[in-house]
């Protein structure tokens, strides 16, 4: 059962999540000043930028964890702080960078905690809660593990449990803070594929990501940040360029279409050689071993 407020039509022509002129920070430290950004409805948005650029801070402000000192975060046209907490929680969920599982909790119990926004003192476990948990476990392939202790799971499985909890929250907008950071490469892609299925089902997915290639491959909208400011935003094809990567990350890189998906992919240059052309084995018709790249530099020049 969906909460009626979760499917309410936002003001026409205006995205559901809008940040207007917001100054965000911690205690006395300002991270972002007068930030304005909108999350396109139904998009798979990735927020990228170097460490400490304010990506997570922006995400936490979107999720109402941080309150901007000036400016506003609007959800469906209304200031997010003006909602009842559970009302926000039925429209928007967040997977924080670090979450803590209580000692001795089992998978299904943890996933079931995602239902909190729908529960109250007398209604603690409705059929809709059970159905949402069943669906979330199935979607994350955890049904078989539902009775296991979370502590006993592998890192990849555990992250799936947290995603399942977010999924059980059944929100049209999902925010995820570096969901792939501690996973090995196979589990990273497994998780990104999972997020893509959520997006395909019509959810708005907003993800802080470190891996530019992943961001370009899965997101249809990128927000690029540096020093608390938004440098640019748009489709990966338009946004990811060699100049931008050098500008924002201070990394000289080659941007070339991903041979698998055709999305932009970033390959760092070797700072010692500054080679700008990939070494292709086909370059060498005589079957001799490819020259070390240090010599390549002279060949190019």
């Amino acid at each position, binding site marked *: 059962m969906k909460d009626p407020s979760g499917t309410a039509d936002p003001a026409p022509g205006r995205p559901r999540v809008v940040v207007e002129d917001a100054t965000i920070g*911690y*205690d006395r430290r300002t991270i972002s000043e007068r930030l304005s950004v909108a999350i396109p409805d139904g998009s798979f948005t990735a927020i990228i930028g170097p460490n400490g650029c304010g990506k997570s801070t922006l995400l*936490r402000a979107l*999720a*109402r*964890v941080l309150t901007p000192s000036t400016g506003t975060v609007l959800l469906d046209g209304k200031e997010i702080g003006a909602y*009842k*907490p*559970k*009302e*926000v*929680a*039925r429209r*928007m*969920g*967040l997977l*924080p*960078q*670090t*979450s*803590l*599982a*209580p*000692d*001795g*909790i*089992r*998978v*299904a*119990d*943890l996933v*079931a*905690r*995602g239902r*909190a*926004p729908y*529960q109250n*003192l*007398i*209604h*603690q*476990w*409705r*059929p809709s809660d*059970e*159905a949402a*948990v*069943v669906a979330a*476990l199935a979607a994350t392939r955890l*049904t078989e593990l*539902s*009775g*296991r*202790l979370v502590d006993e799971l592998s890192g990849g499985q555990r992250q799936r449990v947290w995603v399942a909890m977010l999924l059980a*929250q059944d929100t049209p907008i999902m*925010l995820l803070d570096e969901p792939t950071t501690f996973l090995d490469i196979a589990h990273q892609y497994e998780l990104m594929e999972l997020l893509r299925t959520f997006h395909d089902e019509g959810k708005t997915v907003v993800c802080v990501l470190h891996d530019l290639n992943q961001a370009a491959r899965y997101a249809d909208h990128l927000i690029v940040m540096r020093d608390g400011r938004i440098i640019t935003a748009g489709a990966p094809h338009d946004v990811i360029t060699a100049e931008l990567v050098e500008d924002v990350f201070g990394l000289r890189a080659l941007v070339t279409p991903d041979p698998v998906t055709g999305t932009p992919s970033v390959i760092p240059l070797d700072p010692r050689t500054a080679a700008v052309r990939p070494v292709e084995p086909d370059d060498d018709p005589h079957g001799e071993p490819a020259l070390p790249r240090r010599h390549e530099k002279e060949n190019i020049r």
Partner: protein
Amino acid sequence: MNKESVAFGYRTRTLRFRWGSGRVGVRLLTVSAVLFLTAVVLATVSLTYGDYPLTLQQVFATLTGGEQGFERTIVVKWRLPIAIAAVVFGALLGIGGAIFQSLTRNPLGSPDVIGFDSGSFTAVVLAIIVVGTNSYWWLAFAAIAGGLVTAFAVYVLSYRRGIQGFRMIIIGIAVSAMLVSVNHYLISRAEIKDAMTVGLWKAGTISRVTWPPMIPALAVAALIVVAAALLAPAMRRLELGDDAAVTLGTRSGPVRLGLIVAGVSTVAVVTAAAGPISFIALAAPQLARRLTRSAGESLLASAGMGAALLAGAHLLSLYIAQLYRPVPVGLITVCLGGGYMIWLLLREARQRYGLVR
């Protein structure tokens, strides 16, 4: 496996009514019921002990109104408030311990370790020595105020962009040590009579509890239990971390404040009526967790375990009194709890650092 229902990995009962719904762990409920029953049985048996020994039959006869006269005075007027105190105070301490262990996410984070009962005690000593009062209401007020002020000080001192459980425990232990030295100073300056009162009170005994202070204590206890029950779901969400709790629709600040006030109140009510009774709050939630195999600290099972522990310690103190001489129940819980604490610290050290085998 039924596709429409969740396999939780343990036996649960789903309750569905037109007016409400819920889900309970069968083991958690059973264990809690057994613990409360044990507490009541131990407390009932304790009614037979004393300078004027009674049989269980006599006790039952008196309680059901069959026996009158002197037995009735002994059982209903003198011993019953003490037996009730053992069960209710034990349950309160269990709840207070569970609340703070959940807030600090650490089995060491109980109110007696992080100094709230030292704070209550300091305020009570001040009330006895400086104000010169001995009335329950003054002492209760002082105990609650002292506990809250200490809790607030520990909270503020350990606040750095949020509360981290371990920092709160370390600072609590330090504040507690400072308060203990203040207590010693106050007592050393006091008149002999006041120092005696404080000294007796400090051992923590429920054997001097009478009806007049018990009735307000029971009323406050009922309030605390209701508040804790109302805050319990939000407490479960705070265990996931503040960010997760907020995004699940929790007002983390007010909820945490409410939990701190409720947790401190449990200790303060007990301290006001009986003096400091240590280690029940520390041990009960963890022992209960091992029995129930629940996730995190269950308030219900911790209350049951606390009640059973204090009723048991009370009975033990009565038994020792027969063989030897009266030993305050607070000293017994300290002795038993000390052993538990050593075991807990060794286990923590082994798990965290692999230091001790």
